[in-house]
Every structure is written in structure tokens, then in C-alpha cells.
């Protein structure tokens, strides 16, 4: 696992993956410890008439899952669990109360965590502790997901055992930043959970608070032919290089790295990260004209077969591809497809629709964008293309250096609880590129090809801003 020659300690010591059987806490019998009839007859500790309504819809309900888990914990028994057996019963109770009153009964934050770490654990307490004593302390632990969320069943089972034994047994797979989230444990269990995660799973706690948040990446070259760089390797190396930022908070607010292997953006880097890495290419889209003919003759299904049930009728290359190219840079003469590559904005439409005929170029790297965020304090914001192209070679030192530069600027200039995107808005993109030492480029546009920023200082433009209108009109009549 990991980068050759850079195996984690536990890989070196063990020489092989830790097997679930080596670290398992529960037996198979523990997992199958109730019947469906018992479930029907089961009455959780609190009546939940409002939550019960949610079980009546057409989709599986979290309420049904929680009731199963509540019964399961009763059958496992308090002797085999390290936090209150009735945690899930009380959780159902507190949620019901909140539905009834339209108010939350959680308070959060405070001083919980593992020693030396300033993130990854979010303290959560119930303000109705008399009524719901088993969730009086119900902390959330964010666990750093493996790259691209690739884990084997040994890892997943061991993780679930820890959640059950030292927590409520409830997980959120995955949180919106990508973490594997353990929902509900007590302060006393935090250090043991951390020990088990690091020693048994070779894993670590993720980020929260004013930290670097757990970096997240798409599946990239692990499975995807569109990957323009090794997202898994870059995410791993950046996670390792920025350990201090991940665990010891000194940022004005949260900071996210996300790695998308191509502009399809499967981890939504462009919309959800302060520093987004998006795979791209410099050369031409590769075209296989024979395969194009096969698509036109409907011998290969469009969109990799993804639209097979959509009743779209026969494939029409002019309407579906050429006319939908957002930059109008494609032509089809009935026999041959051509692309005016300098005008292509890498939207991926044509490649997604005809993946056997069109491929990303061979001269690949990353585009780097800054400043996206979700709408917590100010409104949602997309990121701004700042570095149109950079090669992405292991161990990604150029990317690390750029990240440090921007973080240093943000630490220096950012206000408390100001995201990087808000700082860029306040100080201007011009300031950002000056800080980064990047020249203004036509590719730095807010919306592709429509809204260029003006970057130049008057002193940089020959003749400054002054023009003789008469001279201009002599060459450009009205």
C-alpha cells in the first residue's frame, strides 16, 4: 500500500495487510443476533410517532436503520459495549423531541480531542441529559478516509467494530468532506479510538475546525481512463506533507484541498475546495475516426451505455455533440470529426459522450483554482482559475510550494473565520497573483471566455491608459 519505498510503519512491520480476524472485536454471531420477528416486536425506549412516519415512504429510512441498531445493541448487551447500550434509543428520543419542537437539543464544541490534535473530534452534548442520559456526550470523530475511498472489507469491518464497541455503532459514510464519520462516543473513548485507528487500521483522524480538512480525491487512475494525473498519489503526498496543518490549527478558518483527475469533477473540487486541483491536458484531444463512425452508425452506445434506457432515438452526432460543444470548436463534415483544440475549454462533453472515440490529450497535468466554498458564512462561491497548467509529478513539490505560499498569505491577511475565497474577493485576484508571483494570463477568467479580469497596472501598459481618440478614430471610423 502507499507509494513504493514509502510504506507506512504498520505495513513495514507486518509485511502484509492487517486482516480483520486479527483485530476483530465481535463474532459473526454478534452480528446476526436478532430475528425479523424480534424486530417487529421491538419497542425502543422512547415512543417516536413522528419519526415512525418517515418509515412509511417508498425509500429506506434512517429511522428503520436506527431501530435495527438499537435492537442489535440490546442483544449485544452492555457488558460488551463501552458506551451506553441505549445510546441509539436515546438518539431516537432526542430526534423525536426536536421534530416535535422544531428545535435542536444538541450543543457542540468545547474541549474534546486527542492529545496534541486540534481537530477531527467535534464535541457534541445533549441539553436534555436527564431525559436522554445515554447521549449526554455524543461526540463525532472524523476519520481520514483512504485515498479515493478505496478500502477493503477487512478495513471496513474493523472500522465498524470500533464504532460499535467504543461508540454508538452509527457511522456516516462519508461526510461531505469525505471523512468516514463515527457518530456518537464519549470523552473517555476518544484516546482508545485514536489508538485503535492508528494501530489496528494504520489510519488517522481527519480535520475539523480551523485546520486543513481531510484532503479528498477522485478515484483517478485507480479505475478511470479520464485521469490526467495520479490523484491518489497527490492526495496522499499532500496529506502527509501538510500533517501539521491537518492536526494543529493555525489557519483563520477551514481550508480544503480536493483533487479531481479531470474536469468532470467527481469530488467537486471546483465548487468545494479552497485549493482545487483539476486534471487537464495541453495538447489535442485524441480522436479515433473509426470509432466515431461506429458511434454514428449506433454500433457503440453513447455515454458508455449510460443513456441506454432514456429513449433518445438514434445517435445524432451533429445535434448531440457538435451543436452542444460550448465553445463551438467542433465540426463534422459527414465523415470526419475535427476539433479546433485551442478553443476547447475542456468541458468533457464530447469525451463523455463518445469515450471510445475521443480521449484526453497525452501532455497532461493540473489546473489549480482557488477560493471555492459552501454557503456557511457568506454565499456559496466557485473557485477561480489561477494556474492554468502545471505538471503534476510525484512528489508534487511545486504544488506543495504553491499551497504554502497561499496559506502563508491567508494566515497573514485573512480575518478570523474568513475563507480564502472571501479574502481573494476582499483583496482582489490581482493581489493573489502578485503574492503567488504568477503573471496575469488570459486563461484567468471568472467564467470561461466571458468575463476577463483586468490585471494590468498602468505602468505595465505601453503608453499607459491615455489614448488619442482622434488618432484611434482615424483608424477605426464609427
Amino acid at each position: 500500500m502507499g507509494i513504493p519505498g514509502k510504506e507506512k510503519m504498520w505495513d513495514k512491520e507486518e509485511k502484509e495487510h492487517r486482516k480483520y480476524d486479527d483485530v476483530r472485536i465481535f463474532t459473526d454471531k454478534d452480528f446476526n443476533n436478532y430475528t425479523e420477528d424480534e424486530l417487529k416486536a421491538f419497542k425502543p425506549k422512547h415512543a417516536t410517532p413522528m419519526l415512525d412516519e418517515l418509515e412509511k415512504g417508498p425509500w429506506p429510512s434512517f429511522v428503520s436503520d436506527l431501530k435495527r441498531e438499537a435492537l442489535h445493541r440490546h442483544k449485544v448487551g452492555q457488558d460488551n459495549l463501552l458506551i451506553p447500550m441505549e445510546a441509539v434509543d436515546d438518539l431516537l428520543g432526542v430526534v423525536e423531541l426536536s421534530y416535535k419542537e422544531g428545535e435542536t437539543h444538541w450543543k457542540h464544541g468545547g474541549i474534546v480531542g486527542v492529545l496534541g490534535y486540534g481537530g477531527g473530534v467535534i464535541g457534541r452534548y445533549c441539553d436534555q441529559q436527564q431525559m436522554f442520559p445515554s447521549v449526554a456526550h455524543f461526540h463525532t470523530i472524523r476519520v481520514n478516509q483512504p485515498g479515493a475511498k478505496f478500502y477493503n472489507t477487512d478495513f471496513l469491518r474493523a472500522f465498524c467494530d470500533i464504532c460499535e464497541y467504543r461508540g454508538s455503532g452509527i457511522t456516516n459514510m462519508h461526510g461531505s468532506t469525505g471523512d468516514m464519520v463515527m457518530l456518537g462516543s464519549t470523552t473517555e473513548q476518544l484516546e482508545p479510538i485514536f489508538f485503535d485507528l492508528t494501530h489496528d487500521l494504520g489510519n488517522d483522524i481527519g480535520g475539523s475546525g480551523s485546520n486543513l480538512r481531510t484532503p479528498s480525491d477522485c478515484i483517478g487512475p485507480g479505475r478511470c481512463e479520464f485521469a490526467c494525473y495520479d490523484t491518489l498519489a497527490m492526495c496522499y503526498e499532500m496529506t502527509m506533507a501538510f500533517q501539521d496543518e491537518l492536526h494543529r490549527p493555525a489557519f483563520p478558518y477551514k481550508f480544503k484541498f480536493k483533487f479531481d483527475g479531470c474536469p468532470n469533477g467527481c469530488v467537486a473540487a471546483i465548487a468545494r475546495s479552497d485549493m482545487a486541483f483539476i486534471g487537464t491536458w495541453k495538447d489535442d484531444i485524441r480522436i479515433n475516426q473509426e470509432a466515431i463512425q461506429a458511434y454514428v452508425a449506433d454500433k457503440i452506445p453513447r455515454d458508455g451505455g449510460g443513456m441506454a434506457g432514456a429513449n433518445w432515438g438514434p445517435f445524432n452526432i451533429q445535434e448531440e455533440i457538435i451543436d452542444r460543444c460550448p465553445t463551438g470548436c467542433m465540426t463534422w463534415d459527414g465523415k470526419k470529426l475535427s476539433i479546433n483544440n485551442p478553443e476547447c475549454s475542456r468541458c468533457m462533453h464530447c469525451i463523455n459522450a463518445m469515450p471510445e472515440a475521443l480521449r484526453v490529450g497525452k501532455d497532461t497535468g493540473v489546473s489549480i483554482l482557488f477560493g471555492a466554498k459552501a454557503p456557511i458564512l457568506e454565499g456559496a462561491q466557485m473557485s477561480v482559475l489561477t494556474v492554468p497548467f502545471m505538471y503534476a509529478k510525484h512528489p508534487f513539490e511545486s504544488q506543495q510550494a504553491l499551497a504554502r505560499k497561499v496559506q502563508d498569505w491567508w494566515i497573514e491577511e485573512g480575518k478570523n473565520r474568513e475563507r480564502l475565497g472571501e479574502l481573494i474577493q476582499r483583496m482582489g485576484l490581482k493581489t493573489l497573483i502578485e503574492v503567488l508571483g504568477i503573471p496575469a494570463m488570459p486563461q484567468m477568467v471568472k467564467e470561461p471566455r466571458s468575463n476577463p479580469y483586468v490585471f494590468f497596472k498602468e505602468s505595465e501598459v505601453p503608453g499607459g491608459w491615455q489614448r488619442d481618440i482622434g488618432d484611434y478614430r482615424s483608424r477605426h471610423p464609427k
Partner: protein
Amino acid sequence: MGREEDIRQAILDYGSKGAKTKFYFKDMLAGVKKTIPDTGASEVKGVASKMIAEGILEYFSTGSSTMYGVKGRGISVEKSGDAGG
């Protein structure tokens, strides 16, 4: 005193004397810079991290952002704020 000791003292002075018992890193840095103007974020962070490990300082989380505090000073649970994230 050595430089690290100076920074430790400045952090402690800032953390123990102000009205606020929990403070943002940036404000602590500004406080330290008043007595040690030539220091910077990474140096102060390094010293503060050591003081956390030694149990002199502690982190205080509001869920979405993190503050520092001198251990034992002020409240230990956040009562309001934005819910996690």
C-alpha cells in the same frame, strides 16, 4: 531568557491576562508580536503546539473553527455557534 522562552511567556501573558479566555490563533499571534515583533506565524504555532502537548494550553473547538486557551481558564463547552462543519 532564550527566544522560545520569550515566546512562551508572551503567549501565557496574552492568554492569562485578557478578558477573553478563548482566542483565535491570529489574535494570539498579534498579542505575541507586541512584545516580539520579529516573530511569525510558524514560529508561534510551533511553540503553541508544544505548549498544547505539555498541557499548558488547550484547543477549544466551536465545531467549525478552533481557538486556543490557557488550560482550565474559562468555559469548557461551547453553548452556541454554527453547528459543526
